């Protein structure tokens, strides 16, 4: 029995192509709408795109760094706590 159509490699390849196409479209769409920016750098092309990507990459890297110090097995609190 073949797996669900949504998880076949061919579908996933197609989804990636559509996704990249949509990403490109959003940047292109910037040229079609009127802008009324609050700040100067909002006028840089694709501000939302590169800022969104970099912000997320930054947060993931920061989270991994924090995890280096604060990560524990999820049974950490189970021992030593009782109903008392």
């Amino acid at each position, binding site marked *: 029995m073949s*797996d*669900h159509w*949504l*998880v076949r490699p061919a579908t996933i390849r197609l989804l990636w192509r559509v*996704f990249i196409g*949509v*990403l490109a479209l*959003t*940047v292109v*769409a*910037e040229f*079609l*709408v*009127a*802008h*009324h*920016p*609050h*700040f100067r750098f*909002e006028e840089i092309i*694709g*501000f*939302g*795109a*590169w*800022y*969104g*990507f970099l*912000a*997320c*990459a*930054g*947060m*993931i*890297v*920061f*989270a*991994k760094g*924090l*995890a280096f110090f*604060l*990560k*524990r*097995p*999820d049974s*950490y*609190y189970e021992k*030593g*706590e009782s*109903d008392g």
Partner: protein
Amino acid sequence: MASALLHPGLLIVIAGFALALLRGRARAAVALAAPLAVLALILAAPAGIAWSGTWLGLEIRPLAYDALSRLFAVVFAIMMFAGALFALNQQSRLELPAAFVYGGAALGALLAGDLVTLFVCWELMAVGSTLVIWSAGSSPAYRASMRYLAIHLLGGVLLFAGIAGHVAATGSTEFGRLALDTPAHWLILAGFLVNAGAPPLSAWLPDAYPEASWSGMVFLSAFTTKTAVYVLLRGFPGTELLVWVGLFMVFYGIVYALLENDMRRILAYSIVNQVGFMVTGIGIGTEMALNGAAAHAFTHIIYKALLLMSAGSVLYATQKRKCTDLGGLFRTMPLTALCGGIGALAISSFPLTSGFVSKSMISQAAGDEHLLWVWLALAAATAGVFLHAGIKFPWFVFFQKDSGLRPEEPPLNMRLAMLLFAALCIGLGIFYEPLYALLPFGTGYVPYTGSHVVVQLELLLFSGLAFFVMLPMLRRTLTITLDVDWFYRRLAPLLVRACSLALRAMGESLGMAKDGGMRRIKAATHALHGPQALFARTWTTGGMALWAALLLAGYLLVVYV
């Protein structure tokens, strides 16, 4: 007329007690009808003070309506209805009555026109919500509920001290705008912030809420934090400190949710994140920002409840909570996945969802005030919400890998509750005028402009790209991330144990020293006064006469020489 006589919160609490006694269809009828009746009551009520009187010599106004309290009361009533519908098949006989007492107390806090009534409702809310967690019936839930209660009683003590100080200084119990100029007002702010999930005590929320049952957390997500947002809106608008507190909460929520493995703890961290947006808006304090915070609380209650209903349905069907155990559920739970997806889009404030029309007002206000760093942080956080809740939750639960689980969709009442809230998430995103009409200020804000929609889509979709590009770094592991609760769950018990060990050791050495000393004293006494000792033995008469003669001779010598 009825709205002047009947108190919505009291009605919900009474309905809660009735639910404890009723069974079957009567129970379902009361659970669904009471919130709807209360909703009608709130919408019909005119603005102004409906109930007033004196209690313990204090002026109280237990029932007062204005635009802000009505907005929150409307969404609380809607939430009670959908929550009750979702929880109709909950086996626990305690949970739904407790949730009604909790929700009724929260309504009472919203409609309180004075600080005394507010405090009473505040404490009742803590009791009701503790019972909701408790009714999950497991031992971890019991322990979490006790920690939860301890934190909320601490918040209550801070609030009470603040209110007492305020009333003593001003002689007024009225709940209006408070400036941070006296210790009493700082205490009131601290009490409010504890319930908002603000630092340093944010950890109570992801610690306790996910231990509630599959339906319990739906109620919990709505009332405590949003009541705190409401009182902050009323008491501390434009307090700059709140901008920074809010931004901290926003990023705390994102970072901790990114590292989390338990699907409902992801959503719990995301509550802190979302409340952070509201608190930031309250700190900015312009009409646009306050409208944004209030509107965001309204839409947040609905989409967060929807996300938790979706997660609750998964928990109900699979008994599993960890992302590492889940995955691929879209095959057999397509409706739950779809509704969870709609909630995820709404929390990420995608255009055409409710989150878009509410959250963008807060960013707009930051831009209007030229708060560059706040604006940049909010934009980054918007992308981060999609990252930690918008994609992460649906991806790891419904897609990711095939976990091999093939659970069925949940029962009809749970599906209907999810469909209702999914419809509201999209409905409010498209027809936002009724929501805007309920807001406290008229700002004429237009959410759908070309550039706003395009920039928002860029932020969100490229955040999605970052998620899938960096997916290996986000792989789920069987771990938790330590938080401030470590201090009272680990360090404090360790200190107590260390202290008790030290005390015992000290006691023992004292006891030993005492025993040793006593032995020596006893031995010495025995040596001098024992049966055969110097002072106790019987002397011969001759010896006695000799010693007496010697003493007398000595005496003569002393006298005459």
